[in-house]
């Protein structure tokens, strides 16, 4: 490979100008002529109830109301708002027990804020006023907050498909004993010198993407259903919507707008079914739903809260003999990706350390809370909170250095990765640990903070993790890409990959430009509308750069090859004797024997007859390359985070002093974007471990469904941060790259918990570790200050 010209450089982002000018068009900015406004009537009287009687007549009579919709006025078909079920084969989906049990408007309210009807009106105000006139009679049902409550034999059933309200457990057919893992855990514990166990709780955390969900939909005059949305996965949503409304896919278009953050909240559908049902009810007229934050917070899926039990056994020398674990997720009102999350939580566990024996059980139970689904990390931060604290406790009890223990016992290249199906393709975790430890001054600080007195105590903690690049081989992976060379040889890359704001379109453009050998200005990604391009899964599983990038690279290699083939015929040499520079194709070592790429591309399109010879002036055909790409690896990135903090033992407050993260990402296509992912991920991981939790009262009503009451870390709360990119190159990733999207959120969780442990001598099992919990434990245990 010659020297890289674009890849590896922090070039200006392709979307930057519109974003700093304020001209980027998000879904809420879309305004169409004659646009109507939709409002979903939600149940705020109960978190669990049956709708006995619904009277929409008073609402319908309000001047300016165009249509009112109850459950019987829309399709009776049910759906699953997540798209994970589409990515499993029919057989696998049946084994996993995936279901479609959601209704557009429900008659069985399963969480506070569940949608029961829709109003379409000439303005938002009129729709809101009409919504207040909807008369509903409810039959209140018992509210179930915990799996014990909903799993009780006499509990009201959420769906006939899931007896006992158990939404999921690892299926016997795929996982004998309903458990994944290997070896004989019980026997191993008998041989262990140290066995510890504990039960943890990881909170229901909200993505809080800055842009609340907005939608516009229009069933247009050519009988086509259009939906403008900022979803992460337009292609899969396209199919879901077509199926739900019995439309051919050719009559549906999902127009992807600029996405104001996703982090999993937009994996699949949120209100696409509702807005499309409304548009179909008023053909020819666009309808808009602009959700207020309070409702967005309730209706887009959150992180799964989980009770997570773990038992681990070691030999005296630190050999990890066995781990036994069980996580029970609080699923919320509907199934969504019920099978996947409870599984991946265990996958991250089996992928991390060289335990000789491992057993993991994962279950989910319905609860009367807003739905849970994807959130950056997808079970990984939960496992990090639990596993990394357990390892820390074991190291303290065995008097082992926690950093050295991790260096020695983490899985590495060639070991079986998270799914226990494919081996790790590359691992530079020890480099990550070494470089991070040096930057933060681990050895000195760890020693210094070992024995402290006084009310303010400092601690330093470390945690490690790994993730994945794409969902292979767990579920479907597939990206198609078409590269077209234009008349002037500039390239249009047609690919449906989403940019949720993370910068994917910039990095993907870099990959295309580098592969073609063109300057970045001559390459444009055509993304957006779901039917403009071929298939792509969408943004999830940290796949976009790894899978989408590889697809683009292959298509660009093909286009470049076609160009070289034509040049070779003109120059009468073999293709491998040719090189390209500045759009000139020349024979290596003989730069005077050359042909212009522009001429070849133009002649392929403007293909005239040479009057002298009577033959075409050159080869006919616009150069176009197409690939349908499925990866056969998932090149997991490894990473380590160090956190230094200070606990005020009199107030329970935690001040974050410094965070150093180092990621083995293979190759940074765009270093600043990679660092941005790590730093933004850290803000969310630190929030999960310290402050963020969605609270509900005993009735199941939300307590903090606003940014005012839900505590995210602000600029002043953030520590000094250093991001280290470890680039050893992965043999499979495009230009050696592995993923970085989700990874950043994971290890700040464990590292912070471990730093608090060093500072206070206390391990907190119930996240988030708020000042109240810290004070409570300190008082209970009676910390001494001398």
């Amino acid at each position, binding site marked *: 490979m010659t020297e890289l010209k674009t890849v590896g450089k*922090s070039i*200006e*982002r392709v*979307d*930057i*100008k*519109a*974003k*700093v*000018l*304020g*001209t*980027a*068009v*998000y879904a*809420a*900015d879309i*305004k169409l002529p004659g646009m109507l406004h939709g409002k979903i009537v939600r149940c705020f009287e109960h978190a669990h109830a049956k709708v006995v009687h619904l009277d929409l007549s008073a609402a319908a009579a309000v001047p300016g109301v165009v249509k009112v919709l109850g459950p019987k006025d829309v399709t009776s078909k049910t759906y699953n708002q997540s798209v994970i079920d589409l990515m499993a084969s029919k057989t696998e989906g049946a084994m996993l027990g995936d279901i479609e049990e959601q209704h557009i408007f429900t008659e069985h309210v399963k969480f506070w804020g569940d949608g029961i009807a829709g109003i379409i009106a000439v303005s938002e*105000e009129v729709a809101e*006023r009409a919504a207040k006139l909807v008369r509903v009679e409810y039959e209140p049902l018992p509210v179930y907050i915990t799996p014990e409550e909903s799993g009780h034999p006499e509990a009201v059933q959420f769906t006939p498909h899931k007896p006992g309200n158990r939404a999921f457990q690892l299926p016997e057919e795929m996982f004998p004993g309903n458990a994944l893992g290997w070896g004989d855990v019980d026997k191993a514990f008998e041989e262990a010198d140290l066995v510890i166990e504990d039960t943890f709780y990881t909170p229901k955390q909200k*993505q*809080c*993407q*800055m*842009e*609340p969900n907005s939608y516009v939909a229009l069933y247009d005059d050519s009988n086509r259903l259009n939906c403008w949305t900022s979803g992460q996965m337009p292609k899969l949503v396209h199919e879901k919507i077509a199926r739900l409304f019995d439309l051919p896919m050719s009559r549906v278009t999902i127009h992807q707008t*600029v*996405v*104001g*953050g996703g*982090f999993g909240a937009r994996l699949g559908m949120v209100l696409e079914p509702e807005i499309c049902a409304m548009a179909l009810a008023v053909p020819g007229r666009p309808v808009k739903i*602009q959700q*207020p*934050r*309070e409702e967005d917070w309730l209706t887009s899926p959150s992180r799964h809260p989980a009770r997570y039990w773990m038992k681990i056994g070691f030999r005296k020398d630190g050999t990890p003999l066995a781990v036994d674990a069980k996580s029970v997720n609080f699923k919320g009102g509907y199934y969504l990706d019920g099978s996947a999350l409870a599984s991946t939580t265990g996958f991250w566990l089996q992928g991390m350390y060289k335990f000789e024996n491992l057993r993991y059980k994962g279950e989910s139970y319905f609860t009367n809370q807003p739905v849970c689904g994807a959130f950056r990390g997808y079970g990984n931060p939960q496992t990090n909170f639990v596993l990394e604290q357990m390892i820390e406790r074991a190291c303290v009890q065995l008097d082992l250095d926690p950093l050295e223990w991790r260096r020695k016992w983490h899985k590495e290249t060639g070991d079986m990765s998270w799914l226990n199906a494919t081996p790790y393709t590359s691992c530079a975790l020890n480099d990550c640990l070494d470089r991070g430890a040096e930057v933060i001054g681990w050895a000195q600080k760890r020693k210094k903070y070992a024995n402290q007195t006084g009310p303010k105590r400092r601690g330093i903690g470390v945690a490690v993790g790994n993730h994945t690049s794409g969902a292979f081989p767990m579920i479907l992976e597939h990206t198609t890409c078409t590269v077209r060379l234009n008349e002037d040889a500039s390239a249009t890359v047609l690919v449906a990959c989403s940019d*949720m*704001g*993370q*910068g994917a379109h910039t990095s993907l453009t870099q990959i295309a430009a580098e592969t073609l050998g063109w300057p970045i200005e001559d390459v444009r990604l055509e993304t957006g509308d779901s039917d403009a391009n071929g298939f792509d899964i969408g943004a999830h599983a940290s796949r976009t750069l790894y899978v989408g990038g590889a697809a683009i690279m292959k298509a660009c290699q093909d286009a470049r090859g076609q160009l070289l083939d034509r040049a070779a015929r003109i120059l009468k040499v073999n293709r491998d004797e040719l090189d390209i520079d500045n759009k000139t194709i020349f024979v290596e070592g003989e730069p005077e024997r050359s042909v212009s790429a522009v001429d070849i591309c133009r002649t392929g399109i403007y293909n005239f007859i040479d009057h002298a010879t009577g033959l075409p002036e050159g080869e006919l055909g616009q150069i176009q390359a197409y690939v349908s790409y499925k990866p056969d690896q998932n090149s997991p990135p490894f990473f380590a985070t160090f956190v230094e903090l200070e606990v005020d033992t009199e107030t329970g407050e935690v001040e974050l002093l410094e965070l150093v993260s180092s990621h083995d990402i293979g190759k940074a296509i765009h270093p*600043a*974007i990679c*660092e*941005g992912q790590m*730093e*933004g*991920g*850290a*803000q*969310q991981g630190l929030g999960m471990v310290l402050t963020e939790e969605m609270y509900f009262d005993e009735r199941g009503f939300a307590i903090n469904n*606003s*940014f*005012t009451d839900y505590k*995210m870390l*602000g*600029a*002043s709360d*953030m520590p000094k*941060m250093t991001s280290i990119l470890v680039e050893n190159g992965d043999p499979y990733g495009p230009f050696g790259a592995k993923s970085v999207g989700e990874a950043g959120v994971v290890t700040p969780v464990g590292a912070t918990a471990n730093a608090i442990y060093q500072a206070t001598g206390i391990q907190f099992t119930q996240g988030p570790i708020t000042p109240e919990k810290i004070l409570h434990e300190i008082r209970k245990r009676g910390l001494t200050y001398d």
Partner: protein
Amino acid sequence: MSEFVEAVDIEVTVNGKTYQRSVEPRLLLVEFLREELGLTGTHIGCDTSYCGACTIHMNGAPVKSCTLFAVQADGQTLTTVEGLATDAGLHPLQKAFSEHHGLQCGYCTPGMLMSAKALLERNPNPSDKEIKKQIAGNVCRCTGYQNIIKSVHAAAAEMRES
């Protein structure tokens, strides 16, 4: 219905241009800018004046336009993100946010730029702490704030030089 209140005439100067409009007293300033004037660069993030995506300047001072009624802007001079760039090009803050990757999804960016502008107008050489304090009312969920702070420093340096 008593809920319908008569419209009120207002005159507002936005980004140097004066607009006369008749608005309902309940209309929020942010809605007025977005829906009436089509200035959709000012975003709505939280509806509770917490996140700062709707930050604009009123008579040179940063305000959250989701907390004000349009009628409160009567006779006032407003600047929104659309008023930052001039014929000469991007504002130094816009340039710095571009060069130093001070954004990802971009939804908080207009508000962030307006808050930072207010700071740099009164303090041409702010410390990290002063920048953090200034953007305490501006939430970003993508960047971890690191590159935003870097961008504000870079813009400050350029503005000091010019």
